[in-house]
């Protein structure tokens, strides 16, 4: 296919895709994340139970069950997804009550049925079926119970009984205070989990110490014994009427929640029914059999205890339904009506003490089944719809601002080429937006940051190519040849740089938390799409237009001859650049040590409430007063500037609160100061913070390994080391600036840092790529001279790519909301530091290191000999010899195209000259007719093999002066 046809085909293809994208954009809705439309997000961590380990199957089953539960909440477009090996994220758009949502969705619902009287243990640790003071008699499950401290003290005395149907599957631990006779925390499966204790205000808080304090001790209740909370009166769900009522049971359950089917909330409307709400259900085949046997045994025991003339109720025995360690109901078995137990073929019911809501909740829990694993709520956040909309508006403004600013930059700097780049940028924006709608990608605030950043990345690719095209035209090529050569030579660096960005985005996507995942996905996708538009599309446009008059003038392309070429002695000046970096890092180290880094609640755990108050007079003192009334007097309160919400916006940071407590706090703030709309709340548990920090460290290490491997593969391993040094320089500078400016480090900051790892390489790869290209071109120059020239050649494009990325990032910083500004600040500092370190750190380190190699040392010694003990910054004298590698490659190609295959005169056979030519064509390097490399003085100069880089297509010829002569006829030794 000719170039013209190829270009036409690409343009038609692009146009077709633009139309299809426009249709997609018009017909599909954008899927917005919770941070943009409001709602509740819950993050759970799965822990194993006796019946299931935390494996893929158990987590997937849990997600299925949670999805069914969410469906019953009637939430539109809920999202439940797994993150990492053992975490589940539940996103519920438009839900306002986080407390109710988490109770409905995340309740583990470990449901068991116990034969009550047979298992309740008395003070002698033996069952006492006929002792009402132990079992509660007719008020089973409500009377005869003990305070929790006494129940635990009783239970701990019992030996292990593992050979029965135990619900616990192992020992349970409690932290008790013997002086106050209270249980501070437990039951826990691990001793280390006991130090999240209930404070004086009834809320749980994580203690810093992990050993029992004075008067405290850890108590172990062995497997086979269980402490159950007694039945709570109605209204206990909001903890207002809790009773300290506990029983000690022999842990030998009869049935599990998985043995029942089709539970429903109903009303007790049968003959003699009370009309009260109840829960009806059926049994599985196995469950039915066990149920009949268990109820028969209970009935027989009741019959045996019945004293004629007394009330049958006095002798009736019970079974207990236990949900998550609490007796929710303990109905009796009527031994007169069911002497052989209850035939469960028509199902069964649980009744008594239900409200419609509580009966519905139990039915729902039973219907969706018990979760196979235990779930711990480790993070909970609630975003108000108002603040979400505001964040979306800010994001859109930042995006448009970023786009406009990049367009202006491209037009101002590249004129006609800039117009083509802008056209490609428009096409990129249309494709990308359509792709986001088509997949669909849930667009979050970090995702918008990724989108804006990719605008810069897309422009970068154009800048790299256009600068190369300009360079080729300035070197004397025609416009057509310059465009062709520019794309051909520029594409390697672009692909290298973009591959690294995509790899880092992939690592980020695999390891990061949900919000950052959106950023990574958008960044990765955007980079891929930008490769298509910035390279293929612009090449097709330029190729089609290359013969037009418009492109014939070099000045129209910004390629007019330069009055002065850039010649900076980067190598010589490196001492001063190094000193500047050293001073900045010393300040950074002192700031890191003295002030530390302010890690946000993402890492430290805690609860944050952001609320706009309607009361115009509300000030920090008023907010603190309300907090003090909630026992949160030590909270950190910060006024937040928010033009849209008004002046009275406050951000309150406290230790982690439970959803119930968060609701109480919001209610109190609303009553006293009036909250505008809904507040934003975010609660992060210590486990979540730890897992975020762990993922961040793994992501950074993985990124560094991948980057090193890639650079080693594409260049050589010695090029990877300066890259790593430059990257550590960038990361430490960003850290130091964060410490110095007291900015909070969030997950967004870490994502920005990781992106920076990929992005910082963009410039470094451009520099290294040019050095790689110039090494064979300058066979007599010192490495520092080659590097100086390479860096001077690419310094403009390095600065321009940084500007084109920095400008949209600046737009994020100026127009974005809080989250976007977090990203933008880290990115902006990183982009500046990355550009600087690519040229002034990575380059000089590479020079210093490579010049120690024997080959380069010899060249340097020769040049020093020639110039009186110094090496000029730029190749001069004998070192200025240049090989036109393009021409050499072209000549080689032509020679191969004209390869001799038949003798000129077949009747005369193959002449010696023809034979020699054929041998040359076959590239037999030991052949005496093979092309000789120019000779070098081995004592004074580097041999080609000393400076050979693995990337070069052909290994240079070796010095054959000492080789044994070979037979010219056969190419074999004589």
């Amino acid at each position, binding site marked *: 296919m000719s170039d013209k046809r190829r270009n036409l085909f690409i343009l038609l293809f692009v146009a077709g895709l633009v139309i299809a994208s426009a249709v997609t954009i018009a017909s599909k809705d954008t899927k917005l994340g919770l941070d943009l439309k409001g709602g509740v997000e819950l993050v759970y961590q799965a822990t194993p139970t006796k019946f299931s380990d935390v494996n893929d199957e158990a987590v997937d089953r849990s997600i299925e069950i949670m999805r069914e539960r969410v469906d019953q909440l009637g939430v539109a477009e809920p999202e439940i997804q797994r993150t990492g090996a053992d975490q589940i994220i539940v996103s519920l758009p438009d839900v306002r009550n986080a407390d109710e949502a988490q109770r409905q969705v995340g309740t583990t619902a470990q449901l068991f049925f116990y034969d009550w009287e047979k298992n309740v243990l008395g003070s002698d640790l033996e069952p006492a079926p006929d002792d009402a003071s132990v079992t509660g008699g007719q008020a089973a499950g409500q009377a005869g119970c003990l305070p929790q401290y006494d129940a635990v003290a009783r239970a701990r005395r019992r030996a292990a009984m593992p050979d029965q149907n135990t619900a616990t599957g192992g020992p349970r631990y409690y932290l008790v205070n013997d002086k106050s006779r209270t249980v501070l925390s437990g039951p826990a499966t691990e001793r280390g989990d006991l130090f999240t204790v209930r404070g004086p205000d009834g809320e749980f808080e994580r203690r810093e110490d992990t050993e029992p304090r004075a008067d405290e001790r850890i108590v172990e209740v062995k497997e086979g014994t269980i402490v159950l909370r007694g039945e709570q009166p109605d209204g206990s769900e909001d903890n207002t009427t809790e009773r300290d009522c506990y029983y000690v049971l022999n842990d030998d359950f009869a049935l599990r929640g998985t043995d029942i089917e089709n539970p429903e909330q109903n009303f007790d409307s049968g003959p003699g029914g009370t009309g009260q709400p109840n829960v009806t259900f059926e049994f599985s085949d196995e469950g039915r059999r066990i149920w009949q046997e268990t109820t028969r045994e209970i009935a027989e025991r009741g019959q045996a205890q019945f004293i004629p003339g007394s009330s049958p109720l006095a002798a009736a025995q019970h079974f207990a339904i236990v949900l998550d360690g609490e007796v929710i109901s303990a109905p009796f078995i009527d031994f007169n009506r069911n002497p052989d137990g209850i035939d469960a073929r028509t199902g069964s019911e649980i009744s008594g003490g239900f409200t419609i809501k509580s009966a519905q909740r139990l039915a729902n829990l039973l219907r969706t089944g018990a979760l196979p694993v235990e779930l711990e709520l480790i993070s909970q956040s609630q975003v108000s719809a108002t603040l979400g909309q505001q964040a979306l508006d800010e994001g859109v403004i930042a995006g448009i601002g970023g786009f406009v600013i990049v367009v202006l930059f491209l037009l101002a700097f590249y004129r006609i080429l800039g117009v083509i780049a802008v056209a490609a940028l428009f096409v990129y924006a249309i494709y990308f937006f359509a792709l986001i709608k088509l997949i669909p990608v849930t667009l979050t605030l970090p995702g918008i940051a990724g989108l804006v950043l990719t605008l810069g990345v897309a422009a970068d690719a154009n800048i790299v190519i256009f600068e190369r095209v300009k360079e080729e035209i300035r070197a004397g090529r025609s416009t057509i040849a310059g465009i062709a050569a520019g794309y051909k030579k520029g594409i390697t660096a672009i692909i290298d740089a973009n591959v690294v960005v995509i790899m880092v985005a992939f690592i980020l996507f695999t390891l990061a938390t949900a919000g950052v995942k959106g950023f990574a996905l958008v960044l990765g996708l955007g980079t891929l799409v930008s490769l298509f538009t910035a390279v293929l599309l612009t090449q097709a446009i330029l190729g089609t237009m290359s013969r037009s008059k418009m492109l014939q003038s070099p000045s129209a392309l910004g390629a007019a001859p330069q009055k002065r070429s850039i010649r900076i002695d980067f190598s010589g000046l490196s001492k001063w650049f190094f000193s500047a970096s050293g001073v900045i890092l010393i300040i950074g180290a*002192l700031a890191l040590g003295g002030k530390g880094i302010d890690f946000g609640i993402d890492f430290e755990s805690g609860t944050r409430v952001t609320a706009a108050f309607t009361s115009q007079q509300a000030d920090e003192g008023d907010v603190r007063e309300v907090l003090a009334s909630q026992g949160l007097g030590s909270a950190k309160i910060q006024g937040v500037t928010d033009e849209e919400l008004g002046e009275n916006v406050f951000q309150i940071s406290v230790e982690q609160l439970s959803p119930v407590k968060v609701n109480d706090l919001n209610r109190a703030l609303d009553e006293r100061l009036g909250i505008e709309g809904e507040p934003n709340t975010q609660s992060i548990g210590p486990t979540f913070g730890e897992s975020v920090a762990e993922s961040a460290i793994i992501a950074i290490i993985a990124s560094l390994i991948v980057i090193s491997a890639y650079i080693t593969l594409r260049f050589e391993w010695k090029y990877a080391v300066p890259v790593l040094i430059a990257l550590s320089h960038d990361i430490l500078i960003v850290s130091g600036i964060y410490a110095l400016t007291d900015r909070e480090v969030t997950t967004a900051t870490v994502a920005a840092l990781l992106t920076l790892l990929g992005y910082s390489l963009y410039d470094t790869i451009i520099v290294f790529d040019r050095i790689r290209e110039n090494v064979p071109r300058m066979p007599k120059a010192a490495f520092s001279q080659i590097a100086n020239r390479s860096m001077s050649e690419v310094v403009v494009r390095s600065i321009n790519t940084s500007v084109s990325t920095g400008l949209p990032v600046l737009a994020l910083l100026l127009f974005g909301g809080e989250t976007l500004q977090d990203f933008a600040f880290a990115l902006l500092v990183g982009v500046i530091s990355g550009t600087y370190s690519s040229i002034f750190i990575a380059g000089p380190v590479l020079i210093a290191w490579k010049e120690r190699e024997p080959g380069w040392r010899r060249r340097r010694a020769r040049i020093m000999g020639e110039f009186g003990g110094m090496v000029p910054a730029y190749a001069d004298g004998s070192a200025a010899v240049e090989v036109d590698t393009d021409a050499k490659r072209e000549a080689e190609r032509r020679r191969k195209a004209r390869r001799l295959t038949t003798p000129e005169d077949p009747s005369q056979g193959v002449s010696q000259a023809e034979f020699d030519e054929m041998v040359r064509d076959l590239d037999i390097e030991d052949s005496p007719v093979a092309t000789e490399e120019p000779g070098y003085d081995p004592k004074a100069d580097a041999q080609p093999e000393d400076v050979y880089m693995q990337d070069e297509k052909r290994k240079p010829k070796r010095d054959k002066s000492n080789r044994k002569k070979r037979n010219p006829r056969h190419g074999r030794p004589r």
Partner: protein
Amino acid sequence: MGMLVWVTMGIALWHFSVFVPDRFAGGIVGAFLGAVVGSALFGVLVSGFDVPGRDATDIGTALLGVPGSAIGMAVVYWMGARAVDEELEQDLKRLAGELPG
């Protein structure tokens, strides 16, 4: 956090190694490793094998990275200088005909 502070100080001081003739074993990269390892090791040793946590660092922690980094780079320099001397000695012997080649 203590480790980050020490390493940052070590890398900061490494930047000034360009003012010293490059006789470091492994060159500028050897000096880098010397500075990083030296600052971290010295910090750990002086702190009694206890790395200060997030809230336990101060300016003194940062300054603790200075001697470690200097010692680390000095050790690498000494190793490099010794290797250069040995090489020189070999060359002299070769010139004097005491060694082949």
